[in-house]
């Protein structure tokens, strides 16, 4: 019997060595091909090599898919796949009431139970502690080994294939084809045909297990979602960000230079860019965060698109150099993939608590544009725009993302490269020397500005433009060192006005869902986009007068923001911090706002936000 469902959330959980990320990713690709909408989120252990079988070693992958628009990877799951006792223990609390648990029986032997810190003699899959759930026990390890006994593979290799059994089973359960996984295995093990055969055999065994075992009477089907017409791919926030940067590089004709120092969760940007050298991408793993940003500044001075990336603690270290780039008025993009803070905080957990540091975390008056991605796919345009603003306004730009966006994935209706606008670059033109070797015309003024207060980019090596720049205050136009009080005030105001004028180039803020005026406006930024949309949609369906809007541009704000906010009786700002956007809105518009703040290292849950807004109605 095949039952149709609207949406399902599955959590794959196992030991770090159990291959749950791969299982999740392969299931995601397979799901995408069915046309369902989806959102995923991997949940890595904080320790790299936590002992096998322990709670600290549990690795998970969550996917939420459905035949309607999917905004988040889901608060709670319908199905929990647990490869061992620790995986069950670590994840059971987010399983829905009457949800389904699928376990690998061999993962619940006495050793695994002890490592997962179950009481002596207690086995959750044998006693009736799971009686409120639908429990399926499958001897995955045994069946996998059985399947591979003649394969010639060693015990370890056999054991490693057990995730394919689980994947096969889940694919059966959701009425899928095995094609995408088969293609993957054939490509991945092209040079090791025995491994293709072995993995396919186990995959199919898992699939047929569902079909032939009488325990499983029902499989499910989720129809395609009413997504906009077009061609889609699945993309993670990390990939989208990197592709956006490369697109900006190609569209501006500026070689991309990326200086970075390894830091969770930003290292993937470095890895992904290092793999794209054939786009002329220059990556530089610097000796520390400060060197990373300074190298990017050097590269920008040399006419490249200088980019540096980090996470919170690294942004703190880069502060002085960002101030330098700001006063030099050179393009620079600073990526901050935020994580739980303060200090080292919670590196693998998500938070959006660096907004005020991005806004104010430098000495002196040093305003910088700030732009934030709101979902994995959205990171593409956010990255492209950050580069565009940096290049066209000769300023460092801070791009805020977070661990949740970077590691999450969703379907993306990707653009055609040719349709993406070119980025024009305003280089200062060379000056020719006359026969006597002297320069023609007037002296070059490195800090002369256009109507948007933007100076020209003069690249070392250009004939006749020799000039000196530095971190000392500059004289208006000439850029010579100046301690003149009036000049300092003029320069301070000019630099601030230059950033403020960027608002003239930004699109107006629009209401995402709901009416243009009314009782409640939910205002968000960054990775809360999904949850806000999901909740506001539900509330509107229930007949409530709620709207939402999400900010991409956090400094300067879109010009119409104040007016837009004024159309509502109440502004609710949900954030994964203690109220940072709220602080900015209150300060800038002298406006009352209602804050909804969570700092648990986790995305805001739908149910929490839903209840909060309901109480405010």
């Amino acid at each position, binding site marked *: 019997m095949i039952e149709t469902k609207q949406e399902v959330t599955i959590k794959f959980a196992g030991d770090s060595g159990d291959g749950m990320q791969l299982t999740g990713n392969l299931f995601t690709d397979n799901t995408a091909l069915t046309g369902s909408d989806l959102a995923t989120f991997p949940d890595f252990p904080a320790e790299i090599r936590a002992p096998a079988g322990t709670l600290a070693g549990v690795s998970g992958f969550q996917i939420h898919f459905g035949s309607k628009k999917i905004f988040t990877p889901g608060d709670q799951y319908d199905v929990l796949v647990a490869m061992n006792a620790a995986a069950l223990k670590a994840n059971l609390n987010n399983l829905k009431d009457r949800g389904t648990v699928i376990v690998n029986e061999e993962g619940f032997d006495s050793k695994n139970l002890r490592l997962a810190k179950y009481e002596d003699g207690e086995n959750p899959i044998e006693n009736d502690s799971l009686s409120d759930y639908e429990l399926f026990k499958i001897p995955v390890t045994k069946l996998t080994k059985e399947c591979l006994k003649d394969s010639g593979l060693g015990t370890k290799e056999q054991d490693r294939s057990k995730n394919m059994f689980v994947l096969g089973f889940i694919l059966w359960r959701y009425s899928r084809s095995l094609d995408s996984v088969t293609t993957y295995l054939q490509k991945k093990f092209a040079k090791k045909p025995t491994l293709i055969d072995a993995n396919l055999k186990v995959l199919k065994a898992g699939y047929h297990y569902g079909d032939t075992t009488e325990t499983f009477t029902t499989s499910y089907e989720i129809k395609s979602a009413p997504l906009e017409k077009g061609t*889609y791919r699945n993309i993670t926030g990390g990939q989208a960000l990197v592709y956006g940067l490369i697109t900006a590089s190609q569209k501006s004709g500026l070689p991309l230079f990326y200086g970075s120092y390894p830091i969770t969760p930003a290292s993937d940007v470095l890895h992904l860019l290092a793999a794209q050298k054939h786009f002329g991408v220059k990556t530089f793993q610097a000796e520390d965060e400060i060197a990373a940003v300074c190298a990017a500044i050097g590269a920008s001075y040399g006419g490249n698109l200088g980019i540096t990336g980090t996470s919170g603690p690294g942004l703190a270290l880069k502060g002085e150099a960002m101030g330098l780039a700001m006063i030099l008025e050179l393009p620079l993009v600073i990526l901050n993939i935020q994580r739980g803070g303060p200090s080292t905080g919670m590196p693998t957990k998500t938070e959006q608590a660096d907004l005020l540091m991005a806004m104010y975390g430098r000495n002196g008056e040093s305003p910088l544009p700030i732009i934030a991605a709101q979902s994995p796919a959205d990171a593409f345009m956010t990255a492209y725009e950050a580069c565009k603003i940096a290049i066209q306004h000769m300023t460092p730009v801070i791009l805020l993302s977070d661990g949740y966006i970077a590691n999450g994935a969703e379907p993306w209706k990707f653009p055609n490269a040719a349709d993406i606008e070119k980025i024009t670059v305003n280089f200062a033109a060379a000056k020719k020397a006359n026969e006597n070797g002297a320069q023609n015309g007037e002296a070059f003024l490195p800090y002369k500005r256009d109507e948007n207060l933007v100076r020209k980019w003069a690249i*070392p090596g250009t004939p006749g433009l020799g000039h000196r720049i530095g971190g000392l205050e500059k004289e208006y136009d000439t850029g010579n060192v100046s301690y003149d009080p009036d000049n300092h005030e003029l320069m301070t105001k000019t630099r601030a006005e230059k950033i403020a004028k960027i608002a003239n180039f930004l699109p107006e803020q629009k209401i995402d869902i709901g009416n243009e005026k009314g009782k409640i406006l939910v205002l968000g930024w960054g990775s809360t986009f999904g949850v806000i949309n999901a909740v506001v949609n539900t509330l509107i369906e229930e007949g409530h007068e709620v709207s939402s809007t999400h900010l991409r541009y956090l400094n300067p704000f879109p010009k119409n923001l104040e007016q837009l906010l004024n159309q509502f009786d109440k502004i609710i700002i949900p954030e994964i911090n203690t109220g940072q956007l709220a602080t900015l809105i209150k300060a800038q518009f002298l406006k009352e706002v209602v804050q909804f703040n969570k700092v648990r290292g986790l995305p805001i849950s739908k149910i929490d936000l839903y209840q909060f807004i309901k109480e405010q109605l």
Partner: protein
Amino acid sequence: MTTTIANLKAKDFATDQDVRWCPGCGDYSILKQVQSVMAELGLNKDEVAVISGIGCSSRFPYYMETYGMHSIHGRAPAVVSGLKLANPDLNIWMITGDGDGLSIGGNHMLHILRRNFNVNMLLFNNQIYGLTKGQYSPTSEVHKNTKSTPMGSIDYPVNPLSFAMGANASFIARSMDRDPKHLKEMLKRSQAHQGTALLEIYQNCNIFNDGAFFAFTDKATKSDTALFLQQGEPLVFGAENDKGVLLDGYKPTIVSLKDAQFSKDDLWMHDEQDMFKAQILTRFFDEPNADDPQYFPRPFGVIYQTNRATYEAQHKDQIEQAVTQKGSGDLNALIRGGSVWEIG
């Protein structure tokens, strides 16, 4: 590619800005020698970039009629690294000091040396913090009385050139502000070297640390305290060239050439290419004491030089290799990725 220009004068490399070092500061001499060496070598000022950190010496770029950046404290090596990767053809001169390069920027110094970008790095060592008005620096001798160490400093000084050897630098040399001829020669050697050329320049800060290096420049002591290295020549010093350095295995000893026991042929012959000998030479680092018969004189000249691929060349090679292997990046293919599906 770099071009050369004939008939340049030192003043072609001077800006219209007033030079603001204290009168009598050793920096003036260094500025002058750099400008005249650039003119003599016919460098095209459009292709020269002078990059500095923070400190008295780091004001240097403002006085050079080239491209230049006065960056932030200690970080010039990082700025230089990015600039060189962006534009490998630029002729980059990095200016730093003992505080900038060995204290706040010690980390970056280590890494630029091992990476071997093709740049000239002038380390103005005056063994004091000048710009902040006279605190002891990482190269100050121990027991130094300064405003921040009224009872004398207790930090043991760093040996910059030994440090550089440890960082696998490909070119190490030492000179001083008061010997323009030698300084110019060393500047030219630095410029000729393909790789990071570290030239330590002893520079007198006549305001806060006057005479720190007089033992090496003063006529009365100089010949006994300083050892001028020449490739292939024996290590000889002393007022009448009467002292030499002998290598007994790897143990250096000072010998007298006065009696017939040792001749110049017995002495250590200088070989810039010999890393082990260079390590020993950088260890000639005692407080100058002309009266001590076993005092090892401070070496000046090129201590070590080796040829090894520059960072920027290898970096460029990898990009070219990637293009050969995968073809120039196709943006559409990148955005589209592996598997796609249609809706509608």
